[in-house]
């Protein structure tokens, strides 16, 4: 599905991603873990085209997508949620969802029919219910607490019904109670839909519960890649991620 081939990205002297190769197959669920600054978010930025690699290639379903911007990559079937939620802060939650729905159904150039069409609003309502955001539908995003914003951010990426979903720390900032309820609803749905899921996480519990395969980053390189329980038990992994030992 996605084939990252010897990708590197340097910022001046700093090699944020150092000769990384990674292959993710269809419908796999992969968790990426590693300490802050180990290159995880940079990898997502590279895969989705927000950054250009300084060397290497990225192939998606046989197409070379290296350096294509986020818009083209999204059009090819990839969606992404962010570590810092990227939302339309001055608009309401419902507006955010409706805009995403309109974009997904190709209505971005429509300047005549109202956005608040009954079928779109119904669909939006379903999504809000799915993510537990119904009560905040009319709230302006800038007034939302961080956890709710994170959930909305994930919701926007899911609306696109992507083939590949990349999530950057989907549960960070989300309250302990919501964390699991959102993931419990989301992950099985993704699995059922055959969506290839790659998520970056700090939280080992989340990793163990929802990932099938773990990829460990340290200093811009991948130091481990394999079945989740297996990898997380390795001492060098626990040292790199938790500082144990």
């Amino acid at each position, binding site marked *: 599905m996605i084939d990252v081939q010897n990708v590197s990205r340097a910022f001046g002297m700093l090699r944020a991603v150092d000769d990384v190769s990674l292959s993710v197959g269809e419908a796999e669920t992969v968790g990426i873990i590693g300490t802050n600054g180990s290159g995880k978010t940079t990898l997502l930025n590279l895969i989705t085209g927000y950054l250009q690699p300084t060397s290497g290639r990225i192939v998606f379903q046989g197409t070379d997508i290296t350096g294509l911007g986020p818009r083209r990559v999204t059009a090819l079937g990839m969606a992404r949620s962010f570590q810092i939620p990227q939302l339309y802060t001055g608009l309401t939650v419902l507006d955010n969802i409706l805009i995403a729905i309109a974009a997904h159904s190709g209505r971005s*150039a429509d300047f005549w029919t109202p956005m608040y069409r009954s079928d779109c609003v119904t669909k939006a309502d379903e999504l809000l219910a799915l993510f537990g955001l119904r009560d905040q539908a009319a709230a302006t995003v800038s007034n939302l607490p961080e956890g709710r914003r994170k959930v909305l951010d994930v919701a926007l990426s899911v609306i696109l019904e992507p083939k590949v979903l990349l999530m950057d720390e989907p549960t960070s900032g989300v309250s302990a109670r919501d964390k699991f309820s959102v993931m419990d609803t989301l992950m099985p749905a993704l699995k059922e839909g055959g969506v290839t899921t790659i998520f970056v996480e700090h939280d080992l519990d989340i990793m163990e519960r929802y990932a099938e395969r773990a990829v460990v980053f340290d200093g811009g390189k991948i130091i481990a890649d394999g079945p989740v329980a297996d990898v997380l038990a390795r001492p060098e992994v626990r040292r790199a991620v938790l500082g144990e030992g």
Partner: protein
Amino acid sequence: MSEPSTRPSLPLAAIVAFAVIAILPLFLSDWISFLIALALAKGAVVLGVVLLLRGGLISFGHALYFAIGAYAVGFLANRFGIGEALVGLPLATIISALVAAALGLLLMRFRGIYFAMLSLALSMILYTVLIKFYDFSGGTDGLSVRGFTLAGAAPAHPGLVQYYLVLVLTAAVVYVGARFLASPLGYLMQAVRYNEIRIEYLGASASQAILASYVISGAISGLGGALVAYLVGHVSPELAFWVSSGDFVFVAVLGGTGSVFAPLIGSIAFEFVKNYALKFSPNTWQLTLGIFLLVVIYFQPQGLWGLLTRLRAKLRRLRQ
């Protein structure tokens, strides 16, 4: 500043306002009627500015389209002897839309201050051309616009006919604007203001949304300019000068960006204040306007429309 979601249902107030404005000429002097028509036509230009302001883009060069529309009518009447509005108005609108499409391709890559500065430069280019090429444009003298006809008929009271023409067309422009603001593109423009990255990650293009909005904006403003040309009976290069663009932005802020009607209210307020300020104190009318603008910026940034909305909410609370 969060914009309220706009549904395109025609408020009762708008119908009432239309009716009131329609019967005003029966009671008011010709000069006041002229001022109202002028304010409405210019209000259309300001609506063009407001459509872009929704996206956080400030066009400091919209006088370009104002002038293009006006001079299209001017050329037609002065150089070709065609004063027929049913020819001049569509022509002005189409030419403005075409220019906006071409320039939009350039401008859509810019944001913020650079968008403002570049739009200013483009309008100044037109200004310098209009000033220098006398044979082409009449230079600083400008062109007179005579021989106004509507559907082939030269009216006995051209001012009155123009008044109703402006009223009807402004209403049409407002309707188009309202549908635009309530549409996916209208909301996408608001999204451009808050987060372009998210737009790209939804598979949509902020630049293309801006281009589409810019074309509609240019067309509306060109139509406004054409109407003003018929009303005033004369076009001159000042129409394209940067201060003229500044006035449109001024009125946009004065009226507020919260509704399609706000630019019209702002424009009427502006024209009347300017008219009386000029009469009573010609040396300080700019000073007055400047202070007025500062007051709005500091104390009522949502403009007159915001003030009206607040008053309406207060009245509602008082009734309860």
